[in-house]
C-alpha cells in the first residue's frame, strides 16, 4: 500500500506542470520587444549536435528587401546544409536542405526554434505575464498549438534570461540570446530537452566580407 502511495506521488509529481507555481502578474508584454534581434545581416560560427552527428559551419541570417528573413547554413568549405526563408507574414519556405536533414520533424523543429529566436509576430500573439516569486523572474507567455512560448526576464524586464518552448507541463526547448551589440545577440544557444539536439551560435564580427 505504501509503495502504491509512493508510486502515485511520483506519478503525480511527474505529471505536474513545472509552470503551475507561476503567479499572474500585471505588466505589459511589449517590454520584451527590445530583445527582438535586428538581423539585418549577421554571420555566426555554428555548431550543431544532433543525436550522434556533429555539424559545424557558418550560419547567415539576413533580412531581405521584401521583409522576409533568410537563414543559410553551410560548412566551412561552402557546402550548404540548408537555406530557409521566414516570411514576415509567418510563412516558411525551404529553398534547400541536404538529404540527411530532409526530414519533416527536423525541418519543423528548426523552423520553430528560429521563429522563437527571431521573435516573429506569429509566435507572440495573445500574450500574458506571470511571475515566479522564488526566482524573481517574469514569464512573458504566448500560447502555442500544443504549449507555450515563454520569454523569461528579470523582474524589471531589463535582461532576457532565457526563452522556453513548452509542452503543457514542461520545457521542450531552452534558448538563450546574450551579449547584444547593435541589436544583434553575440551568442545564441538552443537546447532540446527531450532528445540530443543542441545548436550553438557565436557571431563572427571580424569577417572580411563585402
Amino acid at each position, binding site marked *: 500500500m505504501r509503495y502504491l502511495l509512493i508510486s502515485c506521488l511520483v506519478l503525480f509529481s511527474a505529471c505536474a506542470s513545472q509552470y503551475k507555481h507561476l503567479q499572474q502578474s500585471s505588466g505589459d508584454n511589449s517590454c520584451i520587444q527590445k530583445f527582438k534581434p535586428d538581423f539585418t*545581416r549577421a*554571420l555566426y*560560427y555554428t*555548431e550543431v549536435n544532433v543525436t550522434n552527428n*556533429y555539424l*559545424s559551419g*557558418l550560419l*547567415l541570417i*539576413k533580412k*531581405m528587401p521584401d521583409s522576409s528573413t*533568410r537563414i*543559410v547554413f*553551410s560548412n*566551412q*568549405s*561552402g*557546402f*550548404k546544409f540548408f*537555406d530557409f526563408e521566414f516570411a514576415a507574414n509567418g510563412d516558411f519556405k525551404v*529553398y*534547400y536542405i541536404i*538529404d540527411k536533414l530532409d526530414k519533416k520533424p527536423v525541418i519543423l523543429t528548426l523552423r520553430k526554434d528560429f521563429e522563437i529566436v527571431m521573435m516573429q509576430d506569429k509566435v507572440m500573439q495573445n500574450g500574458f505575464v506571470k511571475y515566479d516569486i522564488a526566482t524573481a523572474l517574469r514569464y512573458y507567455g504566448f500560447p502555442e498549438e500544443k504549449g507555450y512560448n515563454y520569454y523569461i526576464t528579470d523582474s524589471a524586464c531589463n535582461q532576457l534570461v532565457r526563452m522556453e518552448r513548452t509542452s503543457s507541463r514542461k520545457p521542450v526547448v531552452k534558448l538563450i540570446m546574450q551579449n547584444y551589440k547593435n541589436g544583434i545577440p553575440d551568442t545564441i544557444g538552443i537546447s532540446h530537452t527531450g532528445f540530443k539536439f543542441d545548436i550553438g551560435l557565436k557571431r*563572427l*564580427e*571580424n*569577417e*572580411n*566580407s*563585402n
Partner: protein
Amino acid sequence: MRKLLFLVSILFSSTVFPQHAGYTVVADTATFKQQFAAASQKVNTIKSDFVQEKNLSMLSEKITSKGKFWFKKDNMVRMEYNQPFQYLMILNKNDIYIKDGQKENKISTKSNKLFQQINQIMVDCVKGTAFSNKDFSVKVFQNNTGYLIEMSPINKTLKDMFKNINVTVDKKQFAVNSIEMLEISGDNTVITFVNKEINSSLPDALFTH
C-alpha cells in the same frame, strides 16, 4: 530577315563562346591531358595562401574566408582556415582529420563515400589527374594565360550538390589558380590560390596531427 539575322547571331555567338566567357574549347584534350599530367609530375609540393568566397546569389551575399594550403605528393593536403574562424582539415591518404575549435574529429574516407569523393576532387585538381576521376565528365577550355577544366558530376550524390566544378590552371606550370564549385541553385564557392610556392620543402609532420 531581321529576325533571322538575330537568330543566327545568337546561334553564332553561343557557338563561339560556348560556356565560359573569354575561353574557347580545347578540341585536342588528349594532348592537354598529357601536358597536364607531365607538368603535374614535376610538382611535388605546393604551399599557398587561399581566399574562399561563398556567393549566395539570391541573397546578394558574399562570405569570405582565408587561410593557408599545403599539398604534398601523393595525396596529402592541409587546409588551415584562419579568418574569420579557425578550422583545420588534413587529408592524408585515406584519412581526414578535422580540428574545429576544441573539437577534433577523424574520418576514414573509406567509410564515408562523400568525403572520399570530395577528397578525390581536391587531390585530382592539384595532382593533374582530374581526367581520371570517374565521378565526373570533363571538358577543357583555354584563353591566353590559362586553362579551365570543367568537371560535371555523373553520379547522383554529387549531381545533387554541384552543377559543375571549374578548375583554372595557368599555362606555364599547370598549377591550380582557382576551384569553383557551382551549385544547381546558382550559388557558388570559389577558392583562389595566391602566393603559390611550388616544390618548396614541406615536412611530413604538416600532414599529421
